[in-house]
Protein backbone atom coordinates (compact mmCIF):
# COMPACT_ATOMS: atom_id res chain seq x y z
CA UNK A 1 0.00 0.00 0.00
CA UNK A 2 1.61 3.26 -1.06
CA UNK A 3 1.28 6.65 0.63
CA UNK A 4 -0.99 7.84 -2.16
CA UNK A 5 -3.57 5.30 -1.02
CA UNK A 6 -4.01 7.44 2.12
CA UNK A 7 -4.79 10.65 0.19
CA UNK A 8 -8.58 10.13 0.17
CA UNK A 9 -8.53 9.67 3.95
CA UNK A 10 -6.00 12.30 5.01
CA UNK A 11 -5.86 14.79 2.18
CA UNK A 12 -2.89 15.58 -0.05
CA UNK A 13 -1.75 18.45 2.20
CA UNK A 14 -0.95 16.26 5.18
CA UNK A 15 0.97 13.81 3.02
CA UNK A 16 2.87 16.67 1.39
CA UNK A 17 3.92 17.74 4.87
CA UNK A 18 5.11 14.22 5.61
CA UNK A 19 7.17 14.30 2.44
CA UNK A 20 8.63 17.71 3.39
CA UNK A 21 9.71 16.34 6.76
CA UNK A 22 11.16 13.21 5.17
CA UNK A 23 13.07 15.23 2.58
CA UNK A 24 15.30 16.46 5.43
CA UNK A 25 16.21 12.84 6.13
CA UNK A 26 16.56 11.57 2.60
CA UNK A 27 18.95 8.64 2.35
CA UNK A 28 19.41 8.32 6.13
CA UNK A 29 19.55 4.78 7.46
CA UNK A 30 17.14 3.46 10.08
CA UNK A 31 17.18 0.12 11.84
CA UNK A 32 14.19 -1.25 13.73
CA UNK A 33 14.75 -4.25 15.97
CA UNK A 34 12.10 -6.29 17.74
CA UNK A 35 11.52 -9.87 18.84
CA UNK A 36 8.98 -11.23 16.38
CA UNK A 37 8.27 -10.90 12.68
CA UNK A 38 4.67 -12.07 12.90
CA UNK A 39 1.94 -11.80 15.47
CA UNK A 40 1.56 -9.09 18.04
CA UNK A 41 0.96 -5.39 17.68
CA UNK A 42 4.60 -4.35 17.23
CA UNK A 43 5.19 -6.60 14.21
CA UNK A 44 1.86 -5.45 12.77
CA UNK A 45 2.94 -1.80 13.04
CA UNK A 46 6.46 -2.42 11.68
CA UNK A 47 5.03 -4.32 8.71
CA UNK A 48 3.24 -1.13 7.65
CA UNK A 49 5.78 1.40 8.93
CA UNK A 50 8.88 0.11 7.12
CA UNK A 51 7.48 0.35 3.55
CA UNK A 52 6.10 3.84 4.22
CA UNK A 53 9.43 5.09 5.60
CA UNK A 54 11.17 3.57 2.60
CA UNK A 55 8.75 5.23 0.19
CA UNK A 56 9.58 8.55 1.86
CA UNK A 57 13.23 8.21 0.85
CA UNK A 58 14.88 6.89 4.00
CA UNK A 59 16.69 3.56 4.05
CA UNK A 60 15.02 1.45 6.75
CA UNK A 61 15.93 -2.07 7.81
CA UNK A 62 13.96 -4.37 10.10
CA UNK A 63 15.80 -7.01 12.12
CA UNK A 64 14.23 -9.61 14.37
CA UNK A 65 16.22 -11.13 17.21
CA UNK A 66 16.32 -14.90 17.55
CA UNK A 67 16.43 -17.03 20.65
CA UNK A 68 15.44 -20.39 22.01
CA UNK A 69 12.12 -21.20 23.65
CA UNK A 70 13.79 -20.80 27.03
CA UNK A 71 14.76 -17.20 26.16
CA UNK A 72 11.20 -16.32 25.20
CA UNK A 73 9.88 -17.97 28.36
CA UNK A 74 12.21 -15.72 30.33
CA UNK A 75 11.14 -12.60 28.41
CA UNK A 76 7.47 -13.51 28.82
CA UNK A 77 8.04 -13.76 32.57
CA UNK A 78 9.85 -10.39 32.41
CA UNK A 79 6.89 -8.97 30.51
CA UNK A 80 4.43 -10.07 33.19
CA UNK A 81 6.75 -8.87 35.95
CA UNK A 82 7.12 -5.45 34.29
CA UNK A 83 3.32 -5.21 34.33
CA UNK A 84 3.47 -5.59 38.09
CA UNK A 85 3.10 -9.36 38.40
CA UNK A 86 5.12 -11.45 40.89
CA UNK A 87 8.54 -12.73 39.80
CA UNK A 88 10.93 -15.24 41.29
CA UNK A 89 14.32 -13.80 40.32
CA UNK A 90 16.88 -16.41 39.24
CA UNK A 91 20.41 -15.64 38.13
CA UNK A 92 20.31 -18.18 35.28
CA UNK A 93 17.34 -16.32 33.72
CA UNK A 94 19.24 -13.04 33.72
CA UNK A 95 22.31 -14.82 32.32
CA UNK A 96 20.25 -16.41 29.53
CA UNK A 97 18.76 -13.01 28.67
CA UNK A 98 22.23 -11.47 28.39
CA UNK A 99 23.69 -14.40 26.44
CA UNK A 100 20.86 -14.30 23.87
CA UNK A 101 21.21 -10.55 23.45
CA UNK A 102 24.98 -11.01 23.02
CA UNK A 103 24.43 -13.74 20.42
CA UNK A 104 22.13 -11.37 18.50
CA UNK A 105 24.60 -8.52 18.88
CA UNK A 106 27.18 -10.64 17.09
CA UNK A 107 24.72 -11.92 14.48
CA UNK A 108 23.17 -8.58 13.47
CA UNK A 109 24.78 -5.56 11.90
CA UNK A 110 24.46 -2.20 13.65
CA UNK A 111 25.61 0.51 11.29
CA UNK A 112 22.54 2.72 10.88
CA UNK A 113 22.25 6.37 11.84
CA UNK A 114 19.05 5.71 13.79
CA UNK A 115 18.47 2.52 15.71
CA UNK A 116 15.10 1.88 17.33
CA UNK A 117 14.94 -1.06 19.71
CA UNK A 118 11.41 -2.21 20.52
CA UNK A 119 10.47 -3.47 23.96
CA UNK A 120 12.56 -5.15 26.66
CA UNK A 121 13.56 -8.37 24.83
CA UNK A 122 16.38 -6.78 22.76
CA UNK A 123 17.13 -3.88 25.14
CA UNK A 124 20.69 -5.10 25.88
CA UNK A 125 21.63 -4.68 22.20
CA UNK A 126 22.68 -1.17 23.22
CA UNK A 127 26.00 -2.92 23.93
CA UNK A 128 26.50 -2.85 20.15
CA UNK A 129 26.72 0.90 20.10
CA UNK A 130 30.29 1.89 19.43
CA UNK A 131 31.34 5.00 21.31
CA UNK A 132 28.53 7.59 20.90
CA UNK A 133 27.88 6.88 17.23
CA UNK A 134 24.37 6.92 15.81
CA UNK A 135 21.16 7.70 17.63
CA UNK A 136 19.67 4.93 19.74
CA UNK A 137 16.05 5.04 20.85
CA UNK A 138 14.21 2.57 23.03
CA UNK A 139 10.53 2.19 22.13
CA UNK A 140 8.70 0.67 25.07
CA UNK A 141 5.22 -0.55 24.13
CA UNK A 142 4.36 -1.86 27.58
CA UNK A 143 3.08 -0.32 30.80
CA UNK A 144 6.03 0.33 33.13
CA UNK A 145 4.06 2.24 35.74
CA UNK A 146 4.37 -0.47 38.38
CA UNK A 147 7.21 -2.82 37.41
CA UNK A 148 8.65 -5.63 39.49
CA UNK A 149 11.70 -3.91 41.07
CA UNK A 150 14.12 -6.80 40.43
CA UNK A 151 13.36 -7.12 36.73
CA UNK A 152 13.27 -3.36 36.20
CA UNK A 153 16.45 -2.99 38.24
CA UNK A 154 18.14 -5.46 35.90
CA UNK A 155 16.95 -3.77 32.67
CA UNK A 156 17.26 -0.14 33.78
CA UNK A 157 21.05 0.25 33.29
CA UNK A 158 20.62 -0.69 29.61
CA UNK A 159 17.77 1.80 29.16
CA UNK A 160 19.92 4.58 30.67
CA UNK A 161 22.40 4.24 27.79
CA UNK A 162 19.88 5.12 25.07
CA UNK A 163 19.49 8.67 23.75
CA UNK A 164 15.79 8.63 24.46
CA UNK A 165 12.79 6.45 25.18
CA UNK A 166 9.30 6.41 23.68
CA UNK A 167 6.24 5.45 25.73
CA UNK A 168 2.60 4.99 24.73
CA UNK A 169 1.24 7.01 27.63
CA UNK A 170 2.74 9.35 30.26
CA UNK A 171 1.21 6.99 32.81
CA UNK A 172 3.41 4.14 31.54
CA UNK A 173 6.73 6.04 31.82
CA UNK A 174 9.35 5.89 34.57
CA UNK A 175 11.60 8.59 35.99
CA UNK A 176 14.67 8.21 33.78
CA UNK A 177 17.78 10.32 33.24
CA UNK A 178 17.20 10.23 29.48
CA UNK A 179 14.49 12.18 27.62
CA UNK A 180 11.16 10.40 27.38
CA UNK A 181 8.72 11.09 24.61
CA UNK A 182 5.11 10.23 23.96
CA UNK A 183 4.31 8.04 20.99
CA UNK A 184 0.79 6.71 20.74
CA UNK A 185 0.06 3.34 19.19
CA UNK A 186 -1.82 3.54 15.94
CA UNK A 187 -4.22 1.83 13.58
CA UNK A 188 -4.00 1.45 9.84
CA UNK A 189 -7.18 2.83 8.27
CA UNK A 190 -6.63 0.62 5.24
CA UNK A 191 -6.29 -2.65 7.17
CA UNK A 192 -9.00 -5.30 7.02
CA UNK A 193 -10.19 -4.32 10.50
CA UNK A 194 -10.63 -0.64 9.65
CA UNK A 195 -11.19 -0.28 5.93
CA UNK A 196 -14.59 1.07 4.92
CA UNK A 197 -17.26 -1.60 4.33
CA UNK A 198 -20.37 -1.32 2.25
CA UNK A 199 -23.67 -1.44 4.21
CA UNK A 200 -24.65 -4.78 2.64
CA UNK A 201 -21.50 -6.49 3.96
CA UNK A 202 -22.12 -5.03 7.41
CA UNK A 203 -25.71 -6.24 7.39
CA UNK A 204 -24.67 -9.71 6.22
CA UNK A 205 -22.29 -10.11 9.17
CA UNK A 206 -24.78 -8.77 11.70
CA UNK A 207 -27.54 -11.06 10.49
CA UNK A 208 -25.18 -14.03 10.39
CA UNK A 209 -24.75 -13.60 14.16
CA UNK A 210 -28.50 -13.29 14.71
CA UNK A 211 -28.37 -9.60 15.61
CA UNK A 212 -31.28 -7.38 14.58
CA UNK A 213 -29.84 -4.45 12.57
CA UNK A 214 -33.05 -2.46 13.02
CA UNK A 215 -32.69 -2.13 16.81
CA UNK A 216 -29.99 -0.28 18.79
CA UNK A 217 -26.80 -2.30 19.25
CA UNK A 218 -24.41 -1.72 22.15
CA UNK A 219 -21.06 -3.41 21.61
CA UNK A 220 -17.86 -4.12 23.48
CA UNK A 221 -15.05 -5.75 21.49
CA UNK A 222 -12.60 -7.38 23.89
CA UNK A 223 -11.10 -10.64 25.03
CA UNK A 224 -13.16 -12.37 27.71
CA UNK A 225 -10.90 -11.10 30.45
CA UNK A 226 -11.92 -9.81 33.90
CA UNK A 227 -9.88 -6.65 33.35
CA UNK A 228 -12.20 -5.78 30.46
CA UNK A 229 -15.15 -6.10 32.90
CA UNK A 230 -17.60 -7.90 30.58
CA UNK A 231 -19.89 -8.58 33.54
CA UNK A 232 -19.94 -4.86 34.29
CA UNK A 233 -21.00 -4.26 30.69
CA UNK A 234 -23.85 -6.80 31.01
CA UNK A 235 -25.01 -5.08 34.21
CA UNK A 236 -24.90 -1.66 32.54
CA UNK A 237 -26.94 -3.07 29.63
CA UNK A 238 -29.49 -4.53 32.07
CA UNK A 239 -29.98 -1.07 33.58
CA UNK A 240 -30.36 0.48 30.12
CA UNK A 241 -32.95 -2.17 29.19
CA UNK A 242 -35.22 -0.92 31.98
CA UNK A 243 -35.62 2.27 29.98
CA UNK A 244 -35.22 1.39 26.30
CA UNK A 245 -35.04 -1.43 23.81
CA UNK A 246 -31.52 -2.45 22.78
CA UNK A 247 -29.23 -5.41 22.19
CA UNK A 248 -25.79 -6.14 23.62
CA UNK A 249 -22.89 -7.63 21.68
CA UNK A 250 -19.82 -8.83 23.53
CA UNK A 251 -17.36 -10.03 20.92
CA UNK A 252 -13.90 -11.24 21.76
CA UNK A 253 -11.02 -13.39 20.69
CA UNK A 254 -10.97 -17.15 20.87
CA UNK A 255 -10.87 -18.50 24.41
CA UNK A 256 -9.92 -22.05 23.44
CA UNK A 257 -6.24 -21.62 24.34
CA UNK A 258 -6.93 -19.48 27.38
CA UNK A 259 -8.42 -21.41 30.31
CA UNK A 260 -9.22 -18.25 32.24
CA UNK A 261 -10.94 -16.80 29.17
CA UNK A 262 -13.32 -19.75 29.12
CA UNK A 263 -14.08 -19.33 32.82
CA UNK A 264 -14.82 -15.61 32.31
CA UNK A 265 -17.01 -16.39 29.30
CA UNK A 266 -18.98 -18.85 31.45
CA UNK A 267 -19.40 -16.20 34.17
CA UNK A 268 -20.69 -13.76 31.57
CA UNK A 269 -23.13 -16.40 30.25
CA UNK A 270 -24.50 -16.86 33.77
CA UNK A 271 -24.90 -13.10 34.18
CA UNK A 272 -26.65 -12.86 30.79
CA UNK A 273 -29.33 -15.31 32.02
CA UNK A 274 -30.35 -16.53 28.55
CA UNK A 275 -31.36 -13.04 27.46
CA UNK A 276 -31.84 -13.46 23.68
CA UNK A 277 -30.72 -9.89 23.13
CA UNK A 278 -27.28 -10.52 24.61
CA UNK A 279 -24.95 -11.89 21.93
CA UNK A 280 -21.73 -13.42 23.24
CA UNK A 281 -19.46 -13.96 20.24
CA UNK A 282 -16.31 -15.95 20.75
CA UNK A 283 -14.55 -15.13 17.49
CA UNK A 284 -11.49 -16.82 15.99
CA UNK A 285 -8.33 -14.73 15.42
CA UNK A 286 -9.02 -14.31 11.67
CA UNK A 287 -12.22 -12.31 12.29
CA UNK A 288 -10.97 -8.83 11.35
CA UNK A 289 -13.78 -8.23 8.84
CA UNK A 290 -16.41 -9.47 11.29
CA UNK A 291 -15.09 -7.14 14.00
CA UNK A 292 -15.02 -4.28 11.52
CA UNK A 293 -18.65 -4.96 10.56
CA UNK A 294 -19.84 -5.34 14.17
CA UNK A 295 -18.23 -2.03 15.10
CA UNK A 296 -19.79 -0.31 12.09
CA UNK A 297 -23.23 -1.76 12.87
CA UNK A 298 -23.14 -0.60 16.49
CA UNK A 299 -25.16 2.30 17.86
CA UNK A 300 -22.87 2.80 20.86
CA UNK A 301 -19.49 1.22 21.56
CA UNK A 302 -18.42 0.55 25.12
CA UNK A 303 -14.97 -0.13 26.58
CA UNK A 304 -15.56 -0.61 30.27
CA UNK A 305 -12.07 -1.84 31.14
CA UNK A 306 -10.84 -1.85 34.73
CA UNK A 307 -7.23 -1.60 33.45
CA UNK A 308 -6.15 -0.93 29.90
CA UNK A 309 -3.01 -0.55 27.85
CA UNK A 310 -3.82 1.96 25.17
CA UNK A 311 -7.14 0.50 24.08
CA UNK A 312 -6.87 0.25 20.29
CA UNK A 313 -10.46 -1.05 20.13
CA UNK A 314 -11.46 2.47 21.22
CA UNK A 315 -9.32 3.93 18.43
CA UNK A 316 -11.01 1.61 15.92
CA UNK A 317 -14.47 2.62 17.14
CA UNK A 318 -13.68 6.33 16.98
CA UNK A 319 -12.26 5.95 13.48
CA UNK A 320 -15.62 4.44 12.47
CA UNK A 321 -17.34 7.57 13.82
CA UNK A 322 -19.04 5.69 16.63
CA UNK A 323 -20.04 7.30 19.94
CA UNK A 324 -17.92 5.69 22.65
CA UNK A 325 -18.56 5.22 26.36
CA UNK A 326 -15.31 4.16 28.02
CA UNK A 327 -13.57 3.91 31.38
CA UNK A 328 -11.03 6.60 32.21
CA UNK A 329 -8.11 4.16 32.50
CA UNK A 330 -4.76 3.62 30.71
CA UNK A 331 -4.57 5.28 27.31
CA UNK A 332 -8.34 5.79 27.00
CA UNK A 333 -8.48 9.42 28.29
CA UNK A 334 -5.97 10.38 25.58
CA UNK A 335 -8.52 9.19 23.03
CA UNK A 336 -11.83 9.96 24.66
CA UNK A 337 -11.89 13.67 25.47
CA UNK A 338 -14.93 13.75 27.72
CA UNK A 339 -17.96 15.30 26.00
CA UNK A 340 -15.92 16.04 22.88
CA UNK A 341 -14.89 12.72 21.35
CA UNK A 342 -16.82 10.39 23.65
CA UNK A 343 -17.91 9.97 27.24
CA UNK A 344 -15.71 8.81 30.12
CA UNK A 345 -17.18 6.75 32.94
CA UNK A 346 -16.07 5.32 36.27
CA UNK A 347 -18.82 2.86 37.24
CA UNK A 348 -21.50 0.45 35.96
CA UNK A 349 -24.18 3.02 36.76
CA UNK A 350 -22.26 5.77 34.94
CA UNK A 351 -21.84 3.52 31.92
CA UNK A 352 -25.57 2.76 31.85
CA UNK A 353 -26.48 6.42 32.21
CA UNK A 354 -24.19 7.56 29.38
CA UNK A 355 -25.44 4.79 27.05
CA UNK A 356 -29.02 5.91 27.73
CA UNK A 357 -27.99 9.51 27.18
CA UNK A 358 -26.47 8.69 23.77
CA UNK A 359 -29.40 6.51 22.69
CA UNK A 360 -31.74 9.38 23.56
CA UNK A 361 -29.62 12.03 21.84
CA UNK A 362 -28.64 10.68 18.42
CA UNK A 363 -27.54 14.11 17.14
CA UNK A 364 -25.05 14.43 19.97
CA UNK A 365 -23.92 10.82 19.45
CA UNK A 366 -23.30 11.63 15.80
CA UNK A 367 -21.27 14.71 16.69
CA UNK A 368 -19.11 12.83 19.21
CA UNK A 369 -18.49 10.18 16.55
CA UNK A 370 -17.49 12.75 13.95
CA UNK A 371 -15.12 14.50 16.35
CA UNK A 372 -13.70 11.18 17.50
CA UNK A 373 -12.93 10.33 13.89
CA UNK A 374 -11.06 13.63 13.46
CA UNK A 375 -9.14 13.02 16.67
CA UNK A 376 -7.97 9.63 15.40
CA UNK A 377 -7.09 11.07 12.00
CA UNK A 378 -4.95 13.69 13.70
CA UNK A 379 -3.25 11.53 16.30
CA UNK A 380 -3.61 7.76 16.04
CA UNK A 381 -3.09 6.64 12.44
CA UNK A 382 -0.07 4.83 10.99
CA UNK A 383 0.83 7.99 9.06
CA UNK A 384 0.99 9.96 12.33
CA UNK A 385 3.30 7.28 13.65
CA UNK A 386 5.58 7.75 10.64
CA UNK A 387 5.55 11.50 11.29
CA UNK A 388 6.53 10.98 14.94
CA UNK A 389 9.50 8.83 13.97
CA UNK A 390 10.62 11.39 11.39
CA UNK A 391 10.29 14.14 13.99
CA UNK A 392 12.30 12.30 16.60
CA UNK A 393 15.01 11.55 14.02
CA UNK A 394 15.17 15.23 13.05
CA UNK A 395 15.18 16.29 16.70
CA UNK A 396 18.01 13.82 17.42
CA UNK A 397 20.06 15.33 14.59
CA UNK A 398 19.40 18.84 15.87
CA UNK A 399 20.41 17.86 19.41
CA UNK A 400 23.68 16.38 18.23
Amino acid at each position, binding site marked *: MSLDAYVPLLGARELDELRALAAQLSGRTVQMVNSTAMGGGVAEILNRLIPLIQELGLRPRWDVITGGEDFFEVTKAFHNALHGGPYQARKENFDLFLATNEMNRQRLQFDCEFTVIHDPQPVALIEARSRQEGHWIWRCHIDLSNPNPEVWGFLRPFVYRYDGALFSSPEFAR*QLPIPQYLSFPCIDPLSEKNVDLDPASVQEVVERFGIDPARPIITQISRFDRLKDPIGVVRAYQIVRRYMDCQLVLAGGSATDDPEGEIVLEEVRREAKDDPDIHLLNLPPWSATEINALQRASTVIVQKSLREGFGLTVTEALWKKKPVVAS*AVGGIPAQVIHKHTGLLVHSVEGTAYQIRFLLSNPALALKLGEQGHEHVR*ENFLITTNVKRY*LTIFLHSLQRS
Partner: protein
Amino acid sequence: MKKPEHPFRFATVSYLTRIGNQSATTIGELRDGLEKCSDASIFYHTFQSLGRYHFLTEGFSNEFAQWVLAGLNCPALAEQLAAPDIRGYLTLSDMRTDLLSITDEYCRSHPEDVHRLAFEPFYFLESIEVTIPHLGEAWTLEEFRHWLERLSNGSFHYHFLVSRLRLGLRTNDFSLWFENELGLQRLAQLTNRIDVYTNTLESTRAKLYTFIDRELAA
Protein backbone atom coordinates in the same frame (compact mmCIF):
# COMPACT_ATOMS: atom_id res chain seq x y z
CA MET B 1 -1.65 46.55 -3.61
CA LYS B 2 2.06 47.35 -3.41
CA LYS B 3 4.88 45.16 -4.72
CA PRO B 4 6.46 43.28 -1.82
CA GLU B 5 10.12 43.62 -0.93
CA HIS B 6 10.11 40.25 0.74
CA PRO B 7 8.15 37.12 -0.15
CA PHE B 8 6.00 35.20 2.31
CA ARG B 9 8.06 32.16 3.28
CA PHE B 10 5.98 29.14 4.20
CA ALA B 11 7.33 26.78 6.83
CA THR B 12 5.95 23.81 8.65
CA VAL B 13 6.42 22.40 12.07
CA SER B 14 6.15 19.03 13.70
CA TYR B 15 6.00 18.53 17.44
CA LEU B 16 7.45 15.88 19.66
CA THR B 17 5.83 15.46 23.04
CA ARG B 18 8.23 15.14 25.93
CA ILE B 19 7.00 13.43 29.09
CA GLY B 20 7.98 15.47 32.13
CA ASN B 21 8.23 14.39 35.74
CA GLN B 22 5.28 16.39 37.01
CA SER B 23 1.71 15.28 37.45
CA ALA B 24 -1.29 16.44 39.44
CA THR B 25 -4.12 14.59 41.14
CA THR B 26 -5.67 17.56 42.96
CA ILE B 27 -6.29 21.24 42.29
CA GLY B 28 -3.50 22.05 44.77
CA GLU B 29 -1.05 19.95 42.76
CA LEU B 30 -2.24 21.55 39.53
CA ARG B 31 -1.48 24.92 41.09
CA ASP B 32 2.03 23.79 42.05
CA GLY B 33 2.56 22.29 38.60
CA LEU B 34 1.49 25.52 36.89
CA GLU B 35 4.02 27.39 38.94
CA LYS B 36 6.92 25.03 38.29
CA CYS B 37 6.37 23.55 34.84
CA SER B 38 8.39 24.71 31.85
CA ASP B 39 7.17 27.22 29.27
CA ALA B 40 7.19 24.30 26.81
CA SER B 41 4.58 22.64 29.02
CA ILE B 42 2.35 25.73 29.15
CA PHE B 43 2.66 25.87 25.36
CA TYR B 44 1.77 22.17 24.97
CA HIS B 45 -1.41 22.38 27.04
CA THR B 46 -2.65 25.71 25.62
CA PHE B 47 -1.35 26.88 22.21
CA GLN B 48 -0.54 23.45 20.89
CA SER B 49 -3.63 21.71 22.24
CA LEU B 50 -5.76 24.17 20.31
CA GLY B 51 -4.00 22.95 17.16
CA ARG B 52 -4.19 19.29 18.15
CA TYR B 53 -7.93 19.54 18.75
CA HIS B 54 -8.54 21.99 15.92
CA PHE B 55 -11.71 20.14 14.94
CA LEU B 56 -13.47 21.05 18.23
CA THR B 57 -15.43 24.28 18.22
CA GLU B 58 -17.49 24.15 21.39
CA GLY B 59 -16.30 24.27 24.94
CA PHE B 60 -12.68 23.33 24.47
CA SER B 61 -10.04 25.89 25.24
CA ASN B 62 -7.05 24.24 26.84
CA GLU B 63 -6.13 20.97 28.56
CA PHE B 64 -5.91 22.43 32.06
CA ALA B 65 -9.56 23.49 31.87
CA GLN B 66 -10.57 20.19 30.27
CA TRP B 67 -8.94 18.15 33.05
CA VAL B 68 -10.50 20.28 35.79
CA LEU B 69 -13.89 19.65 34.20
CA ALA B 70 -13.59 15.97 33.26
CA GLY B 71 -11.08 14.74 35.84
CA LEU B 72 -12.12 16.84 38.84
CA ASN B 73 -15.74 17.62 37.99
CA CYS B 74 -15.19 21.24 38.93
CA PRO B 75 -17.00 23.33 36.28
CA ALA B 76 -16.59 26.71 37.98
CA LEU B 77 -12.79 26.56 37.91
CA ALA B 78 -12.84 24.91 34.46
CA GLU B 79 -14.81 27.83 33.03
CA GLN B 80 -12.35 30.33 34.46
CA LEU B 81 -9.31 28.42 33.22
CA ALA B 82 -10.89 28.19 29.78
CA ALA B 83 -11.38 31.94 29.58
CA PRO B 84 -7.85 33.18 28.70
CA ASP B 85 -7.64 33.61 24.92
CA ILE B 86 -4.24 32.62 23.56
CA ARG B 87 -4.43 35.51 21.11
CA GLY B 88 -4.16 37.89 24.04
CA TYR B 89 -0.74 36.61 25.05
CA LEU B 90 2.64 37.49 23.62
CA THR B 91 4.61 35.41 26.10
CA LEU B 92 3.99 32.07 27.77
CA SER B 93 5.06 33.60 31.04
CA ASP B 94 2.07 36.00 30.93
CA MET B 95 -0.25 33.10 30.21
CA ARG B 96 1.18 31.11 33.12
CA THR B 97 0.73 34.09 35.45
CA ASP B 98 -2.96 34.33 34.58
CA LEU B 99 -3.64 30.58 34.84
CA LEU B 100 -1.83 30.51 38.17
CA SER B 101 -3.69 33.50 39.53
CA ILE B 102 -7.07 31.96 38.57
CA THR B 103 -6.13 28.69 40.28
CA ASP B 104 -4.73 30.48 43.34
CA GLU B 105 -7.89 32.49 43.74
CA TYR B 106 -10.03 29.36 43.44
CA CYS B 107 -7.93 27.54 46.05
CA ARG B 108 -8.32 30.51 48.44
CA SER B 109 -12.08 30.69 48.01
CA HIS B 110 -12.71 26.91 47.92
CA PRO B 111 -10.26 25.39 50.42
CA GLU B 112 -12.47 22.28 50.69
CA ASP B 113 -11.73 21.45 47.01
CA VAL B 114 -7.95 21.87 47.10
CA HIS B 115 -7.08 18.30 48.08
CA ARG B 116 -10.01 16.46 46.47
CA LEU B 117 -8.66 13.59 44.35
CA ALA B 118 -9.28 13.59 40.62
CA PHE B 119 -10.66 10.57 38.73
CA GLU B 120 -7.43 10.44 36.76
CA PRO B 121 -4.10 12.31 37.06
CA PHE B 122 -3.01 15.21 34.90
CA TYR B 123 0.43 14.81 33.35
CA PHE B 124 2.45 17.89 32.48
CA LEU B 125 3.87 17.30 29.00
CA GLU B 126 6.14 19.51 26.91
CA SER B 127 6.25 20.43 23.24
CA ILE B 128 9.46 20.14 21.31
CA GLU B 129 9.24 21.99 18.03
CA VAL B 130 11.00 20.78 14.89
CA THR B 131 10.65 23.39 12.18
CA ILE B 132 11.04 22.76 8.48
CA PRO B 133 11.65 26.15 6.86
CA HIS B 134 11.19 27.11 3.22
CA LEU B 135 8.35 24.90 2.03
CA GLY B 136 7.87 27.56 -0.59
CA GLU B 137 7.36 31.28 -1.03
CA ALA B 138 4.81 33.68 -2.44
CA TRP B 139 5.49 37.08 -4.02
CA THR B 140 1.88 37.94 -4.84
CA LEU B 141 -1.51 37.49 -3.20
CA GLU B 142 -2.43 35.00 -5.97
CA GLU B 143 0.63 32.93 -5.19
CA PHE B 144 -0.14 33.19 -1.48
CA ARG B 145 -3.70 31.95 -2.09
CA HIS B 146 -2.32 29.04 -4.10
CA TRP B 147 0.11 28.06 -1.33
CA LEU B 148 -2.51 28.45 1.37
CA GLU B 149 -4.57 25.66 -0.18
CA ARG B 150 -1.58 23.34 0.02
CA LEU B 151 -0.66 24.05 3.63
CA SER B 152 -1.07 21.32 6.21
CA ASN B 153 -3.04 22.12 9.36
CA GLY B 154 0.25 22.09 11.29
CA SER B 155 1.75 24.73 9.05
CA PHE B 156 -1.42 26.84 9.14
CA HIS B 157 -1.48 26.69 12.96
CA TYR B 158 2.22 27.63 13.06
CA HIS B 159 1.78 30.75 10.91
CA PHE B 160 -1.62 31.79 12.25
CA LEU B 161 -1.37 31.15 16.00
CA VAL B 162 2.10 30.21 17.19
CA SER B 163 3.53 33.19 15.31
CA ARG B 164 2.27 35.51 18.06
CA LEU B 165 4.82 34.11 20.47
CA ARG B 166 7.58 34.21 17.87
CA LEU B 167 6.78 37.74 16.73
CA GLY B 168 5.86 39.08 20.16
CA LEU B 169 3.08 41.03 18.44
CA ARG B 170 -0.72 40.83 18.61
CA THR B 171 -0.87 39.62 15.05
CA ASN B 172 0.05 36.63 12.93
CA ASP B 173 2.48 35.91 10.09
CA PHE B 174 -0.21 36.25 7.41
CA SER B 175 -1.57 39.61 8.61
CA LEU B 176 1.91 40.98 9.10
CA TRP B 177 2.84 40.17 5.50
CA PHE B 178 -0.45 41.49 4.09
CA GLU B 179 0.07 44.78 5.90
CA ASN B 180 3.81 45.33 5.69
CA GLU B 181 4.58 43.86 2.29
CA LEU B 182 1.35 44.25 0.29
CA GLY B 183 -0.05 47.31 2.08
CA LEU B 184 -3.37 45.52 2.62
CA GLN B 185 -4.30 46.77 6.05
CA ARG B 186 -7.97 45.78 5.93
CA LEU B 187 -7.18 42.23 4.82
CA ALA B 188 -4.64 42.05 7.64
CA GLN B 189 -7.22 43.15 10.20
CA LEU B 190 -9.96 40.84 8.93
CA THR B 191 -7.55 37.91 9.04
CA ASN B 192 -6.41 38.69 12.54
CA ARG B 193 -9.97 38.91 13.81
CA ILE B 194 -10.99 35.36 12.82
CA ASP B 195 -12.08 33.60 16.01
CA VAL B 196 -10.18 30.34 16.35
CA TYR B 197 -12.25 29.29 19.37
CA THR B 198 -15.51 29.14 17.44
CA ASN B 199 -14.00 27.96 14.15
CA THR B 200 -12.08 24.84 13.26
CA LEU B 201 -8.73 25.37 11.52
CA GLU B 202 -10.51 24.30 8.34
CA SER B 203 -13.27 26.88 8.67
CA THR B 204 -10.70 29.53 9.68
CA ARG B 205 -8.85 28.76 6.48
CA ALA B 206 -12.10 28.94 4.49
CA LYS B 207 -12.78 32.41 5.91
CA LEU B 208 -9.29 33.48 4.90
CA TYR B 209 -9.90 32.21 1.33
CA THR B 210 -13.05 34.35 1.20
CA PHE B 211 -11.24 37.49 2.37
CA ILE B 212 -8.39 36.95 -0.10
CA ASP B 213 -10.76 36.19 -3.00
CA ARG B 214 -12.69 39.38 -2.22
CA GLU B 215 -9.43 41.32 -2.23
CA LEU B 216 -8.33 39.75 -5.51
CA ALA B 217 -11.68 40.51 -7.13
CA ALA B 218 -11.67 44.17 -6.01
